[in-house]
């Protein structure tokens, strides 16, 4: 394998970009394909499928046998609001394999006491996320109810096509939110991606139960084929 391919693959992984390393098992050739690259034929179809499923494996094509090693970034969960629900959600999401960050500029909420062993940032989302912006492999959970805090990360997540975007709030609160986001220039389709009311409908009542409903919904968005979700 060409060492430059290894360098490019590692750069993609560091940069949280989805990539597939293709190895030709008949001729020992190697090639790196990024999500969005155009590849025709049987191989192209297999690549599209692999980017969706995340599964590595061998494929037989008209040009021979290939091994596809799929590299997808680890899913992140960014929780806006260091509230009671987040205290339950953050550790549960971490247990499930999410790389979790809780953000709340209100220092009364964002305290070490309430969030031990959680990556907690007491700052505005704009600043807290400047070094690692929301991307397609991020679940954004906005639970402050406060437009001053929630709106920016919601807009940012929808533009970045985050795989899950959920926002807490009554239908009335959400209707107003929809108006604000439309004014901010987001399309109807984009806004419709927000899970609101947030969480799977399991009749959750306590903050812990709501956390379960949110986590289950985020996992479904991650694991289920977008076409079948």
């Amino acid at each position, binding site marked *: *394998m*060409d*060492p430059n391919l*290894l*360098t490019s*693959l*590692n750069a993609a*992984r*560091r940069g*949280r970009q989805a990539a597939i390393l293709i*190895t030709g*098992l008949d001729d*020992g050739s*190697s090639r790196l394909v990024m999500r969005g690259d155009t590849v025709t034929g049987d191989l192209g179809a297999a690549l599209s499928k692999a980017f969706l*499923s*995340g*599964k*590595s*494996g*061998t494929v037989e094509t008209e040009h021979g046998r290939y*091994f596809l*090693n*799929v*590299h*997808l*970034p*680890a*899913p992140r969960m960014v929780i806006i609001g260091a509230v009671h629900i987040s205290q339950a959600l953050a550790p549960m999401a971490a247990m499930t*394999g999410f*790389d979790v960050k809780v953000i709340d500029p209100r220092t009364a909420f964002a305290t070490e006491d309430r969030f031990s062993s959680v990556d907690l940032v007491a700052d505005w989302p704009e600043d807290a996320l400047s070094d690692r912006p929301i991307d397609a*492999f991020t679940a954004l959970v906005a639970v402050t109810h406060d437009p001053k805090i929630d709106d920016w990360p919601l807009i940012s997540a929808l533009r970045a096509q985050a795989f899950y975007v959920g926002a807490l709030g009554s239908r009335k609160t959400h209707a107003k939110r929809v108006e604000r986001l439309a004014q901010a220039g987001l399309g109807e389709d984009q806004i419709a991606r927000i899970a609101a009311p947030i969480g799977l409908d399991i009749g959750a009542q306590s903050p812990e139960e709501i956390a379960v409903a949110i986590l289950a919904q985020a996992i479904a968005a*991650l*694991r289920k084929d977008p076409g079948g979700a």
Partner: protein
Amino acid sequence: MTSRDSIRTDALPSGGSAEDQLDPLMLAERWMRDGRQVAMATVIETWGSAPRPVGSHLVIDADGNFTGSVSGGCVEGAVIAEAADVIASGAPKMLEFGVADETAWRVGLSCGGRIQVYLERVG
């Protein structure tokens, strides 16, 4: 994140050296930069209960230093031994381990699974 029926996601590799030590591909890149000769083994296919999923890597240098894994430690020794050949010749090899043949029994997979490993030189 370990089930083969779900999306496999990489642990996020950072620039930090501790994580790079544990990430075979990052370490292989560093070894290359340091001028070391490197072979990379990849699990291509698994049957039965194999300990490491398809796509897992073991990287080996010319002195037999290695990191990563292609099994739970059962067949790494055999892969490392083959790596010297591959580094010398540059020709990739397909290795197969399982309970079915005698070599496999000697270096065997205790879990009773079978794995196919592709071994190639980087560079």
